[in-house]
């Protein structure tokens, strides 16, 4: 009987301890929530640290997957080598023609720029790396790269792939960074549309399309028009491909030129104006020192 009573009280005490612990942790979560809401430097550092920890693990898994992917591609290519050879020869002949035309156009453009004393805005590449993972959360479309402030990357820097704009650096840890993808709802990119260069802004929708807004009401936008960055925000250099117009009614939608499922290597360009994105003072380590050095 005594033993049963003792066990009963021990269980109650343990339950009380557990409840107290759960309560304390719930309070901690609320403190973190509020601190995160008000853009606290400590939460910035915490997120950067988590990035630095997670990205090597993701990179390792991705490397293994990449090894398998490459072996599979090599086998498949071997199987199709003959017809691929014929296709590539035809393509080379076609591209050589285009290259000649392009050289003439480049020469004309350079000549005109010289005559007008035109100073073009050109993006400076900072580093290249691999996209090692995509965040699976329901609210943020973001990816991870295994490059950080130690490689000269800073928050706000544009990220491009061979096909076009991928997004911009959102948080930079020391050896890893998070990219806000262009289809995230927080993403805004000033663009020019079609041959007339109609100014507008693309907004992410958290799906495979981007919404095109703030185009002049009388603008003639057609399906298939190309969309490129305008550089008006001082972040993205002009003329980086963003996508093509996929739909004009009832709302204008843009299909991005990159398919995230196919993006592997990315290039980080220096934001035209990095000072727009400088982190809070206490978080300002490598990015700021490299800025000051320039």
């Amino acid at each position: 009987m005594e033993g049963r009573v003792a066990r009963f009280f021990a269980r109650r005490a343990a339950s009380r301890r557990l409840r107290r612990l759960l309560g304390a942790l719930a309070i901690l979560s609320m403190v973190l929530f509020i601190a995160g809401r008000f853009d606290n430097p400590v939460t910035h550092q915490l997120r950067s640290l988590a990035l630095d920890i997670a990205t090597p693990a993701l990179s390792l898994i991705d490397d293994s997957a990449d090894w398998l992917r490459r072996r599979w591609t090599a086998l498949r290519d071997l199987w199709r080598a003959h017809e691929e050879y014929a296709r590539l020869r035809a393509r080379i002949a076609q591209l050589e023609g285009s290259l000649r035309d392009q050289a003439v156009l480049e020469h004309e453009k350079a000549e005109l720029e010289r005559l007008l004393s035109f100073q073009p805005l050109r993006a400076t590449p900072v580093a290249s790396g691999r996209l090692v993972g995509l965040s699976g959360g329901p609210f943020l479309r973001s990816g991870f790269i295994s490059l950080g402030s130690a490689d000269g990357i800073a928050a706000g820097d544009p990220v491009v792939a061979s096909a076009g704009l991928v997004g911009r650096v959102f948080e930079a840890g020391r050896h890893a960074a998070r990219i806000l993808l262009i289809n995230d709802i927080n993403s805004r990119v000033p663009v020019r549309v079609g041959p007339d260069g109609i100014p507008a802004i693309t907004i992410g929708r958290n799906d495979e399309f981007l919404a095109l807004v703030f185009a002049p009401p009388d603008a003639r936008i057609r399906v298939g028009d190309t969309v490129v960055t305008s550089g008006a925000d001082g972040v993205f250099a002009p003329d980086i491909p963003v996508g093509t117009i996929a739909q004009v009614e009832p709302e204008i939608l843009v299909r991005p030129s990159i398919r995230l499922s196919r993006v592997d290597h990315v290039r980080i360009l220096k934001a035209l104006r990095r000072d727009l994105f400088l982190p809070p003072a206490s978080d300002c380590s490598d990015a700021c020192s490299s800025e000051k050095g320039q």
Partner: protein
Amino acid sequence: MNAAPIEGVRLRWQRTLGRLPAWLLPGLLGIVLVLAGNLWPWTAADQLPSPHWLLILVFHWSIHRPQALPPLLLAALGLLQDLWWGGPLGSNLLLLLIVQAILLDERRLIRKFSLTQKMIVFGVVAFFYELLFYLLADLYWNPGPPWRPFLVQAGETLLLYPVVVLLLGRLERALLGTRWKARG
């Protein structure tokens, strides 16, 4: 020279090493599942969010092996999930603790359910979890993100629940044998 104390130390070490998988597995598995949330197959990544793997683990272990997931470990995993998903800090931490607190109270009842009944309960839990998750995100960003991905995530998580539970059971048996199960 007396060999008994040396033998005792050896036995104690053997026992400690034997318990290592039981201590390490929950944390390691939790971290792997949180990482898996960032390795959702890339073909689907630009359209679908990943399932909430950690919620499945918390639901399953809160019912069957509550000792495997102490609140401090759960809080750490929730915080990691928040940090790696890039969402409101503390939201997963808080919601997972609430789920565990409720399930610990009801676990004796739910334990007796069949897999289909457990799936129904899990579906309700996942739906309310995502609803609260969405409300917290809405409060954090104001206006919040679209609600559809949250619903999709709840659906995906529910669909994958039986598969993950089956794999978890196999993993537990393979790595820990029946001794750990008996303690649960």
